[in-house]
């Protein structure tokens, strides 16, 4: 039971993610977790506003089922299979505490300073979450995929466009953490 309860190491998680990709390929689909956002926009009528959302979204209902499953998986894992704390490199945890006053590493799954419901009274936190989400949604569609679609599916298929996109992901991420975090937090 401990093996299930402990965080899963990379050499368990990585191969299982590859397995998810292969199972989806075997049922004739592609592994990607952001195109469902476009499907959701189309399903609520965004096709009236832009051609981009005028497509047969009902044929893409399967990815909304994957989404529903991911929600269910998150519930099962957090409720029955986890201590819900994340231990990271102690130097990084110390640096988070010293520089940004984020002290919940090792005690929570997400930093309570940003994500706890009671801290949403802080408009900065709402702005971080909202703007972060907008960048993720916009960037994923502009780049034609996210971490799963490019970094796993696309690179597995040796796609140069996916390599360019993943390099972009890391440029953006490194700029945010190393240059913009000190200004924002």
């Amino acid at each position, binding site marked *: 039971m401990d093996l299930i309860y402990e965080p899963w190491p*990379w*050499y368990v998680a990585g191969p299982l993610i590859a397995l998810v990709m292969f199972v989806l390929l075997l049922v004739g689909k592609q592994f990607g977790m*952001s195109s469902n956002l476009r499907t959701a926009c189309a399903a609520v009528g965004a096709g009236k506003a832009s051609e981009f959302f005028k497509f047969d979204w009902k044929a893409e209902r399967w990815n909304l089922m*994957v*989404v529903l499953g991911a*929600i269910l998986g998150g519930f099962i894992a957090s409720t029955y299979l986890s201590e819900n704390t994340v231990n990271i490199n102690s130097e990084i945890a110390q640096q988070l505490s010293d520089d940004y006053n984020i002290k919940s590493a090792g005690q929570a799954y997400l930093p309570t300073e940003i994500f706890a419901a009671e801290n949403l009274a802080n408009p900065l936190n709402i702005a971080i979450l909202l703007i972060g989400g907008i960048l993720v949604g916009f960037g994923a569609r502009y780049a034609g995929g996210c971490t799963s679609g490019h970094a796993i599916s696309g690179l*597995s298929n040796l796609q140069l466009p996916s390599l360019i996109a993943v390099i972009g992901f890391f440029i*953006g991420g490194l700029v945010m953490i190393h240059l913009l975090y000190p200004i924002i937090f």
Partner: protein
Amino acid sequence: MRYITYLVIGTFFGIIMFKSEAASWFRIYEMFQFGSFHMYGIIGSALVLGVIGIQVIKRKNIKPLNGSEMSLQPKNKSVARYLIGGIIFGLGWALAGVCPGPIYVLIGAGFPSILIVLIGALFGTFLYGMIKDRLPH
């Protein structure tokens, strides 16, 4: 019945994301600080197996169970959209500490604040649809 298959695949994926801590803001921050091999190991090992498996699929001409074609079409050639789109995505990934898959996983795990990220992501997707013709692709 087919829908149940996708639900099960999604559930399996959600459990992996949560249990591997790939859905944790802390792990994303640590990754961009090069503080641990963990995230690189997850992506790297998935990738090594993925590359090998897809080569096998192509060489043995393996078909999906329903006899259709494998969804392995080459992506359109371009630099601008992948690089600029990728950078925008990366900025958001590091700012909110989540990418699209974990957004759903964390909603299921009971973090209401992630709904704000989801609303943002839906709006960002919508915004892209509205202005895409004016962007370099």
